[in-house]
C-alpha cells in the first residue's frame, strides 16, 4: 500500500463523482425526500424511532448500490485489469473507494440529519454527531459489501439484483419492523449474524441515552469488524492474473 497512490485513487473516484451532477443531486436529495415522506406518514413518537433508523439505513443501501456498480464498471471496462498491472496495490483501490464514498456519505448523512433535526423535529436523547458517525460507518459497510459483491456480477442487471439479496434481509431483520427480542429464535440468530442489526441497535442507544453507551461502542466495533472482513474478502476477489 502507498499513501500517495491511495490519495490519488481517492481523488480520482471523487472526481468521477463530481462530473456526475445528477448522481450528486440524487445522493443529496433522495434521503431528504424519503425522510419528509416518513414525517407525514407517522406521528411524532413513531417518526423519531423510524427516522433515526432510516438515517442509518439510507447510506448503507445507497453506497452499496453505488459501489457495486462503480466496481463492476472497473471490471467490465478493463480499467481494473490495467490498474492491477501498475504499481497500485489492491488495498489502495479498495480503501480508495471506502474513503471516497465514505466522504460522500458523510456529506449526505449530514444533510439528511440536519434536515431531520431542524425541520422535521427529530428528537434523540443522544448527540447528533454520533448519529452521523454511525451513518458514515454504515455507508462504509455498504461500500465494503458492494466491493465484494461486485465480483459475482457480470452485468449491471445482475449487480442491482444483489441489493435485494444483501440489503433487504438486513433491513427486514434489523429490528425496524419487528423488534429483535420478539423474533423466533432462529430469526434472531440470523439477525445476530447481520452487521446492520448492530448499526441499528447503536442508533437506538443514541436515541435513548444522553451519553454514548458501552453497547453503542461495542456495536460500532462489530460493524467496523464486518467492514474489515468484507474488505479482506473483496481483496481476495481481485486477481492480478485471470484466464
Amino acid at each position, binding site marked *: 500500500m502507498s499513501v500517495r497512490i491511495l490519495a490519488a485513487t481517492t481523488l480520482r473516484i471523487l472526481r468521477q463523482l463530481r462530473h456526475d451532477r445528477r448522481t450528486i443531486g440524487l445522493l443529496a436529495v433522495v434521503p431528504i425526500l424519503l425522510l419528509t415522506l416518513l414525517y407525514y406518514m407517522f406521528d411524532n413518537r413513531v417518526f423519531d424511532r423510524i427516522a433515526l433508523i432510516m438515517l442509518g439505513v439510507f447510506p448503507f443501501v445507497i453506497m452499496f448500490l453505488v459501489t457495486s456498480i462503480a466496481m463492476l464498471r472497473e471490471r467490465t471496462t478493463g480499467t481494473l485489469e490495467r490498474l492491477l*498491472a501498475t504499481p497500485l496495490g489492491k488495498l489502495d483501490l479498495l480503501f480508495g473507494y471506502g474513503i471516497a464514498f465514505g466522504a460522500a456519505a458523510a456529506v449526505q448523512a449530514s444533510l439528511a440529519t440536519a434536515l431531520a433535526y431542524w425541520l422535521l423535529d427529530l428528537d434523540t436523547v443522544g448527540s447528533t454527531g454520533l448519529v452521523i458517525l454511525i451513518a458514515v460507518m454504515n455507508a462504509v459497510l455498504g461500500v465494503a459489501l458492494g466491493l465484494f459483491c461486485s465480483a459475482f456480477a457480470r452485468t449491471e442487471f445482475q449487480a442491482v439484483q444483489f441489493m435485494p439479496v444483501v440489503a433487504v434481509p438486513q433491513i427486514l431483520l434489523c429490528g425496524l419492523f419487528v423488534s429483535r427480542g420478539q423474533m423466533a429464535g432462529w430469526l434472531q440468530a440470523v439477525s445476530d449474524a447481520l452487521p446492520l442489526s448492530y448499526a441499528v441497535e447503536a442508533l437506538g442507544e443514541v436515541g435513548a441515552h444522553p451519553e454514548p453507551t458501552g453497547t453503542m461502542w461495542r456495536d460500532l466495533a462489530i460493524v467496523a469488524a464486518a467492514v474489515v472482513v468484507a474488505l479482506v474478502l473483496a481483496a481476495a476477489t481481485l486477481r492480478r492474473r485471470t484466464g
Partner: protein
Amino acid sequence: MEAAIEVRDLVVHRGRRAVLHGISCEVARGSVTGLLGPSGSGKTTLMRAVVGVQIVKSGVVQVLGRPAGSAPLRRRIGYLTQSPSIYADLTVRENARYFASLYGLGSAEADESVRDVGLADAADQMVHTLSGGQRSRASLACALVGRPEVLILDEPTVGQDPVLREDLWQRFHALAASGTTLLVSSHVMDEARRCDRLLLLRDGQLLADDTPDGIRRAAGTDDMDEAFLTLIRAREEARV
C-alpha cells in the same frame, strides 16, 4: 545483449481450448517488434502473458530478466489493452494525471503524454464525448505516461487516420531509439514494414520470427499479405 522479453514453450488455455500451443520467442531491447496475425490468432493472449495478467498453463515468460507479472516489473512495463480502458467519466487530462500518479509522476509528465498522442486540444474533454480513435489515443497516453522500459501495445493504431498513424509509428521508433522495447500488435499487414522485427502468429502458433525483409525474402514476395499466405501454405504442406 540480453533480450527484453523471453518466451519459452508458452502454453495457454482459455477454458478448455488451447489458445497458445508452446510459443517460444525473444524480443530485443530497444526495438519495435510487430505481433501480427488474424483476429483470434492469440495475439492478445500472448501480450497478456507478457504483461503477467494471463494465467498460463506451462512455459516461461521473462521480462527484463524477471518472471512476467512480478511486482517490480509493474512500474517498468506499460500496457495498452485493445479496447480503450480508461475512465469515461473523467477528462483526458484527469485520466492521464491519475495514471501518472500511480508511477509517482506529476501533472507535467501527464500533460506531455497527452500532447504526445495528439490530444492537447481535447485534454479537457470528457472521455465519453471522444471519438473511438481519440479514445484509444487517450488510453495510449495513459500507457506511455509512466515512461515504461517495456511497452506492450495491443492494436494502438486501429481507427486512426493515416497522418496520425504515421505520427504514432514515428513516436514508437523514437521511443525505441531511446532504449524502450515495444511489442506492438496489429492485424494490418501494411504496418508490418514499419517494425524492426515481426512475429507472425496463427492459430496459437508462431509462423515466423524474422525481420520484415527476411519474411518477404523467405516468401518470395514484396506484399506482406501475400507473404503471410505463402508462409501459412508452406506450413500446412509441411504438416501433410
